[in-house]
């Protein structure tokens, strides 16, 4: 439980105003040490990579959609077209300091394999995902009887790319199963603000709209 942490203001970005960036991106960027080498898997249009590069971090990206990739490359980012499910195996061990999977885990075919690959390629992994245990989700299913749709996940069940939803609790359980160490964990509310640090896990699982985890390989003595 000690992994649960409070978000801190991000140094160096105050002048530009952090309101230009998504809450979870700011949080992720804060978890990455300056001067490190980062792979962003599912980097979309490169917003997070731009934030990282602005902080002097050597960022690379993989993105599935051709439009996203071309948008990134035309921003001067080092991004390649690829699929997290099939292409991560082509990366060697320890190629990066951090591998980031931001809001993409739930769209992979094999989340467990992807997670294992993240921690093979990178010394650390940062994973953020929408929490399916969020109270709005639960309410919609319980009361409305419909597959939940929220502001951040507006797609209907038949056209969503998200095929493997999980709750914060589920994710923590998976990390335990595959012997992954949680170095830090943060839950964000619907507006991207972090929940109270000392709140218990059940509270996060209920009121966290998304979870952000900094992971590393568990040590031998575990």
């Amino acid at each position, binding site marked *: 439980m000690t992994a649960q942490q409070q978000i801190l203001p991000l140094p160096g970005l105050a002048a530009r105003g952090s309101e230009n960036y998504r809450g979870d991106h700011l949080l992720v960027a804060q978890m990455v040490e300056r001067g490190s*080498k980062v792979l962003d898997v599912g980097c979309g249009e490169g917003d997070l990579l731009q934030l990282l590069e602005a902080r002097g971090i*050597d960022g*690379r990206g993989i993105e599935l959609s*051709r439009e996203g*990739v*071309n948008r*990134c*490359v*035309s*921003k*001067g*980012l*080092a*991004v*390649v*077209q*690829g699929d997290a499910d099939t*292409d991560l195996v*082509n*990366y*060697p061990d320890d*190629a990066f300091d951090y591998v980031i999977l931001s809001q993409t885990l739930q769209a992979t075919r094999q989340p467990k394999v992807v997670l294992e690959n993240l921690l093979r390629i990178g010394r650390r992994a940062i994973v953020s995902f929408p929490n399916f245990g969020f109270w709005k989700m639960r309410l919609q299913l319980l009361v409305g009887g419909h597959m939940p749709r929220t502001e951040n996940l507006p797609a209907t069940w038949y056209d969503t790319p998200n095929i493997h939803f999980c709750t914060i609790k589920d994710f923590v359980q998976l990390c335990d199963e595959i012997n992954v160490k949680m170095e830090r964990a943060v839950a964000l509310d619907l507006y991207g603000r972090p929940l109270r640090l000392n709140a218990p896990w059940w509270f996060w699982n209920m009121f966290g709209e998304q979870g952000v985890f900094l992971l590393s390989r568990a040590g031998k003595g575990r």
Partner: protein
Amino acid sequence: MSRTSGEVWFKMVNIRSIPSPAVHTEERAREADHPSSRLALFGADQPLHLDCGIDLAPFQIAYQTYGELNPEKSNAILICHALTLDQHVANVHPLTGKPGWWESMVGAGRPLDTERYFIICANVIGGCMGSTGPASTNPATGKLWGLDFPVITIPDMVRAQAMLLDRLQIETLFCVVGGSMGGMQVLQWTVAYPARVFSALAVACSTRHTAQNIAFHELGRQAVMADPDWRGGRYFEEGTHPHRGLGVARMAAHITYLSDAALHRKFGRRMQDRELPTFSFDADFQVESYLRYQGSSFVERFDANSYLYLTRAMDYFDIAADHDGVLAEAFRDIKTRFCVVSFTSDWLFPTSEARAIVHALNASSARVSFAEIETDRGHDAFLLDVPEFFEIFRAFLHSAGVARGLAKAGE
């Protein structure tokens, strides 16, 4: 690889009547030895060490430049040309009188901005536009080289370009750019001289020629050699020219540069200047007429033997084979910034080949961007106005320029 000349592209040509390019023979011979380009001469003391084991000396490299080299010599870009193109990137071609083959890409305010960069393009060794090749005079005999010219490779071409840069006293290239065979040279540059290449832009290419690629080239070579006017490669001495064979080679190759969709969109099954089939082997269909035109215009500007040599060089290209079969080994610890571009409808150098390059570069932790551009225009798309392609070109050079100190971020 060709200009697909979108506007004035075809007229009626019958293959049996592909005109002999006799009128241009003299001009072509002059260009081969005394080109309308800048010339770097390398004497007997500066041989080009060829992969086949022969030291070629003396030899010459014909090249064009655009823009100015800055005092720091940090803004030089080398363009590597494709199989049947040459150094006349952005000026009127001395033989055809047509505009340069990449005028849309090179010039003031264009992605390869001549106000900002010093741009060099050299005719490849083995070519026929002024760099030493089979159409050049062999100084030892006073006769044209013909098939006595040693077989050259892509690494040989790059080695010759490196000697040219030494001559120009340029140590590091800001960028090496090229498509198709030019892209192969780009990759070879990064493998052979990684420290001399700050960034590399490889378009519609591969690290090796596939069996299908070799097969198409063999078809072209056989067409040339089957022409009785080829005369065992000594046609220039016998006053003939294998224009039919070379024309057929060009027709076959040209099909591989396009796509089914592009051909269908342009021509469909439309007839050429007639309503009904003639029940003959005349060019009834527009697509036939177009191909015949491509064949006949090509023979006016290209040497048949040179075509044999350059296609062979591409066939031999295989970077992984030179590194124990492991492509990633070739790029180990490379600092060069890469951008790899492929086109969805390119079946000659399909996206899967580009992806193999990217995987190898990733495995070497190289900084690489890779974009696949959606177009139905096939392999030749890299020579055409594809806005998305231009945008990526511009952005990659800009970000590399920021890293190189040539441009400011946000400029």
